[in-house]
């Protein structure tokens, strides 16, 4: 279920956005819930990080889109932001608040659906899930955000997080099924890496906090493509 917020003071534009979201949702079998806000102040005041995606109008009377975004980012680094604006020139500052893109008014469905598609994938990739695993008979829930990589040695899995390592039974394929949609990719046959926690990448090595892994020759092209796809966003 995708939770979307639309922050727009112009009622006509707001209605239009809501209608386009519904249209996209029905065309793409997307489950979503949209909540409307009339001004930046309404959402930024006592902001709760419950949204996956927020459409933010830039030109609003009380608290404009840019300042709203700054306030939201203080509390929520993960929510996907798309600005809606009359004018081109504000767009580039979007980088400072980690906006994904922006839409120019009057918004038409073509670019809207293109950007929404990328936003949906991006939101999904930022999902926080729990890995359900079995360690010596005990059921464990490991938050995926904390995982740096999963290694398989002799049919045993080693899940490495920043604080702890877990040793369990299972196959890398099982883990891959559980993290489907999340940015995990194999850098070699026995290592599954969480791209979110990658700090640096070279042609030979992938670096994370406190550790590094070699990139296997056969997986190199695919792994790097996955990494850059994650970085730039994808439409797939």
């Amino acid at each position, binding site marked *: 279920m995708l939770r979307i917020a639309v922050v727009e003071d112009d009622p006509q534009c707001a209605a239009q956005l809501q209608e386009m979201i519904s249209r996209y949702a029905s065309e793409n079998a997307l489950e979503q819930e949209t909540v409307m806000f009339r001004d930046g102040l309404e959402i930024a005041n006592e902001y709760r990080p419950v949204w996956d995606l927020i459409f933010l109008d830039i030109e609003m009377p009380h608290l404009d889109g840019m300042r709203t975004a700054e306030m939201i980012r203080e509390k929520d680094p993960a929510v996907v932001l798309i600005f809606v604006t009359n004018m081109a020139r504000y767009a580039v500052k979007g980088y400072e608040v980690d906006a994904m893109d922006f839409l120019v008014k009057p918004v038409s469905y*073509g670019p809207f659906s293109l950007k929404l598609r990328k936003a949906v994938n991006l939101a999904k990739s930022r999902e926080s899930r729990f890995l359900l695993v079995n360690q010596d008979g005990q059921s464990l829930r490991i938050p995926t955000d904390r995982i740096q990589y999963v290694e398989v040695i002799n049919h045993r899995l080693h899940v490495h997080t920043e604080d702890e390592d877990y040793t369990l039974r299972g196959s890398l394929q099982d883990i891959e099924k559980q993290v489907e949609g999340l940015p995990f990719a194999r850098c070699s046959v026995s290592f599954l890496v969480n791209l979110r926690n990658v700090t640096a990448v070279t042609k030979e090595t992938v670096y994370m906090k406190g550790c590094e892994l070699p990139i296997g020759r056969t997986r190199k092209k695919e792994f790097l493509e996955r990494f850059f796809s994650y970085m730039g966003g994808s439409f797939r």
Partner: protein
Amino acid sequence: MTDTIRFLLSLAGFPVELFAAAVLFGFPLEKRDHSAFRLLTGFAALLFLYPGAFYLLSTIFPPIRSNFLLTSLLYSFLGYLSLLWFVMFWRNISFPEGVQLATNAYLMQHLAYCLYTAIRIDSVLRRGSFEDPLYPAVWTFVYAALFFSIGKRLPEQGHYDSKAGAVAASSFFALAYSLVLSAVSQKASAESPVLTRVCLLYGAGVCFNLLWSQWEEKRRLTVSQELDLQQELFRKYKEQYEMSAENVELINRKCHDLKHQIAALRHISDEEKRTAQIRELERSVMIYDSVVKTGNEVLDTILTEKSLICEDKQIQLSCVADGAALSFLDAVDVYTIFGNALDNAIESVSLLADPDMRSISVLVTKKGGMVMIQTENYFREDTAQLESPISDNSPHSNKTSPEVTFPSKRQSVNDLPRTTKTAEPGYHGFGLKSIRYTAEKYGGFLNVEAENGIFLLRVVIPEESAKS
């Protein structure tokens, strides 16, 4: 004892000569992992397994031994196969490249052999004899000369060019012919040393010709590419001039309109109407006051310039950029990448029938020590024809503007979308090639994905690299 050693050494001569030739010609080609290990293993295999295999075969099939011609040809052919195996094992190249490399190496060895044997035709001192100073002299001379003049310069960035297949095939057959000639003439050496000498020198000439013509062909290709580039640059300058002229025209028209709007203002007495008109005027001006600030001045300039064009063509251009991330790039390179990427995107979306679909997004971001530049836009799938990577039929186009075709699957770094031949012979998809060349200059790459009507262009450059 010394006789046995001498005999063994004489047997070892040929594999070592082949090996040395392959190493020289294969030296500039792309490495594989554990290159040194592969080199040593290859050497051992050539030295022991190859003669061993020949010995085995000749034992199993006695007729081989009795027929000199057959022996010679089989020995040569097995040698070639071993060479082919070695180069594929040692270097990271495709099969046609391997054939070309193996053939070239053998050609070089055979040239040296023909020369040496032609000189020494009537002497008792023959192959593999270290007592003869001419032996190392001839080989060193031939190998050094051919390596420096041809072998070193033939490959480009670790690979032979894409026509390797055709070259390989024709060279191979010519080599085979030359070997047969040598073998046959050897048989007649006792009766007619002069004739044999002539045949050997002829063989040497053929080998040399084959190697030299590959080099000539490559030079010709380079010149032709440079000419294409010149033509392309000229075309670009012409285009830019026309664009500048268009821009000036646009601005002139806008000023003209504004003049009238201001004049009309004078005559509006109603306060509310006047305020509305003033606001309208403000809006018009602000759209042309598109001062873009990304943190990189060159990017600002390009975006401002392109946004004017986009507005004229009803294209929505959006950009989220960390301009500072581009600071280590040369200004010209920034212009090349973004200029070409945006031109390409603008051209694509202009062809879309529905103006609502005309939107281009530009993203510049930095993560993990990598700087990424990405553009996204819709494109029309029937004009940019999708073809499966397996088929090699040229797609046709009935448009007069330059067309780019997109394969139906994702393509990456070395596979750029191919350009169909159009009414304008000079334009052959140089835009994307320029981007790729620029990205690779900094140790980065260009990736292009074209699927489901969405075109995604991605340039990745490692952060700390200085221009190579």
